Structures are given as structure tokens and as C-alpha cells.
């Protein structure tokens, strides 16, 4: 098997964490602001933080893709992550794959994680938008002028999330015994 048992369990935990944090925090942010897109802005930061920590613990290609695919599957019946239903797995999995490719490209350095966060999050908006057009959701074309602006916001937040996740891992988690056990 490509992944060990402890890696499978860790990826499952991180997938569940992405889902739970996005699901609950999205609702909290939505209740505070009342603006639909505001939840997405908070969620993109949190998602990248969790992905970064997960990918730092498990040093293998495909970790981000698997974690996002699990989060996507869990959130099928919810409003999280934009696209409705089963399409979430595809859009989120694509974002995870982009992050994985960027991380591998820069040999799993912190710069690679930041690039992954930047590209993955920045491309979330056009990918979600394309999926919404394919699904024929009403009034979607009115969002066209905002794609670039939201992509930039998401990209910056994704890069910040990756930096924060890497910082959190290096300073607070890296040397803990259970992290070493999971990595060993």
C-alpha cells in the first residue's frame, strides 16, 4: 500500500477537520456578516492551514488531494465549498492536486507550501465558477466581473494560510512526540 495505516488515519482526521471547521465556522461567519462570500474567504484560510499541517506531517505526494477529496465527500449534503452535491469532490480534489503539485515542484519546502496555497486557493474561484456554469445555476454570469478580484483575495489568503500553517507546524507541533510517531 502507498500509504501506511497511520497515514490513512491522519489523512482521514485532517479531511474531517477541514469539513468540520469549514462547516461550523462558515455558519458562524455567515451569521456575523450575513454576506454569502464572506464565509468562503474565512474558509479558504482555514482549509489551507489544515492542509499545510497535514502535508507537513505526511511527506508524500497526494496527501492534499486525498484530504480535500474526503472533505468534499463529507460536505456533499452541505452548503460548504460553493458547488452543490457530488461536484464538490471534483472541484476540491482539483484544488488539492494543484497544492500537491506545487509542493512537489519546490521539494516540499515552505516556499512550495506557500506557492501551493496561493495557486490552489486562487484557482478555487475560477474552478468553482466553471462548475457552476456547467451546472447551469441561475444568474451565475453576473458573478463574472468579480472572479479576478475574488481569485486575488483567495490567493493572498491561501498563501497566508500556508505560511501560518507552516509556522504553526514548525514552532508548535514539529517536535512533539506524537507527531514524530506519526511521521516515523
Amino acid at each position, binding site marked *: 500500500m502507498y500509504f501506511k*495505516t*497511520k497515514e490513512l488515519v491522519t489523512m482521514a482526521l485532517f479531511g474531517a477537520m477541514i469539513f468540520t471547521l469549514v462547516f461550523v465556522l462558515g455558519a458562524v461567519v455567515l451569521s456575523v456578516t450575513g454576506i*454569502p462570500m464572506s464565509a468562503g474567504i474565512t474558509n479558504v484560510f482555514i482549509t489551507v492551514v489544515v492542509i499545510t499541517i497535514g502535508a507537513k506531517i505526511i511527506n508524500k505526494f497526494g496527501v492534499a488531494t486525498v484530504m480535500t477529496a474526503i472533505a468534499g465527500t*463529507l460536505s456533499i449534503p452541505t452548503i460548504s465549498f460553493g458547488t452543490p452535491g457530488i461536484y464538490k469532490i471534483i472541484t476540491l480534489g482539483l484544488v488539492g492536486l494543484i497544492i500537491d503539485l506545487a509542493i512537489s515542484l519546490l521539494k516540499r519546502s515552505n516556499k512550495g507550501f506557500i506557492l501551493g496555497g496561493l495557486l490552489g486557493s486562487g484557482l478555487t474561484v475560477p474552478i468553482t465558477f466553471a462548475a457552476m456554469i456547467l451546472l447551469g445555476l441561475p*444568474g451565475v454570469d453576473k458573478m463574472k466581473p468579480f472572479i479576478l478580484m475574488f481569485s486575488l483575495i483567495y490567493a493572498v489568503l491561501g498563501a497566508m494560510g500556508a505560511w501560518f500553517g507552516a509556522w504553526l507546524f514548525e514552532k508548535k507541533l514539529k517536535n512533539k512526540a506524537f507527531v514524530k510517531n506519526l511521521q516515523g
Partner: protein
Amino acid sequence: MPQHMKFYEYIYRDSFIHRLDPRVKLVWLFVFSSAVFLTSRPGAITAIFLSCFAVSFLAKLPQRQIWESIKIFVILMPLSYVVLYLFLIGIKWEAVFEALIFSEKFLLLILASIIFTMTTSARDMLLSLVKIKVPYTFAFMLTIAIRFIPLIFKETNNVINAQRARAHEFTFSILHPVTTVKSFIPVIIPVFTLLLKRAYELSLSIDARGFGSQKKITYPDRLNFGVDEIIASLVMTTFLLFVLKLL
């Protein structure tokens, strides 16, 4: 964290719905999801909504817990979709109507999946996913992830309460993101620590039971497609035809 939220948590009851083969329930979930997105007629949506409640009563599920799990969405979703649709379609009654219908559809999806997970144990779910040809590794991770969700809620609540008992003040402000993140670090680190420890212990326990030691995976004979399942499938088909007629 909402204290009473019971999303993806199994509740044991001696009921017809609990005893049903999980594959039938998976199909039920799929039928519901499809029916919800196939129609926009208020009559059909109301029929699906009522059938959903009927199933939750049949399953003897605690209605208060279901309400606690969905109430935040009952309030927030229509509100946010009305704002979004007014922006997308324009300031018209049609936009409000469309938004209400759309948010009701999502509420139904959430409700159906809550009922499914409250009535299906993780072990049965894993078996049924494998039987419908989902790759074993992915089904295994998905089942573990589902089992982690209530734990994440619980541990986060415990850590938040423990930090509050130590007079830690949480700040939540969209305008001051750095202060918000800083105030949550005393929660993030202990939660990660607790959950990663649990993950490690769980993986040890799974390995100790010989997970992955054999190439061919065998399953206990738990799933049984009997008379109850046939009746449930017939009821579902009749219901789907009824809803399709209402389209």
C-alpha cells in the same frame, strides 16, 4: 462550536430504519438528493420534506437533537441565499422565491444526510460502500473521518471551556483577523495535540488487528437484503414516481 450539533453521529435505536440494509439507505439518500434537485415545485418539495420527517419518526430519532443540528441553517441559509439571489437576479419577488426554494432544497439534503448517519453505524457504512464498489482504502478513510467528526466537536468544546475557565478571552472580528487568530492559538494547539494523539492510538489499534496484513479482504456476513429491504425499496420507488409526477 455549537454544543448540541450532532452531525454525522450514530444514535442506536431499535427501529425498522436502523435495521435496514445500509445499501438501501444509501440508495434512499441518493433518491432524495436527486428528487430534491429534480424539482422546484413547492408541492413536491413539501412532500419530500414530510417524508423525511416521517422517516426520522420511524427511526425513533430524538427530534430535539435533529432540530439543534439544523437550526443554524434553518435561520441562516434562507437569509444568505435571499441576499445572494437579490444580487444575482435583481430586486424582485422572484429572486426571494427562488432563494427560499433553493435554501429549502439544501436544508433537505442536510436533514436527509443527518438521518442517514444517525441511523447507520460506521461499520455498516464501510461495508455498504465497499459493496457498491467504492475503493476500500477510500471507504475506510471516509468511515474514520465520519467517526472523527463528533470527536472534533467534543474535543474543541472541551478545550474552549477549559481555556474559558482559565479566563482566556476569545476575540472574533472580521476587521481584526490577526487578533482573532492570536486569540484562537490556545485552542488550536491543544486540539491538534489531542486529535493527533487519538489518530496515532487509533492507527496502532487498527494495525494490532491485522489491517492490511492480507491481500484479500474478508467481511462478516452482516448485510442482508430481505423482506424489509424489498418493502422499503418499493415504498421509495412509489414515492419517487409520485414526486416525479408532481414535477
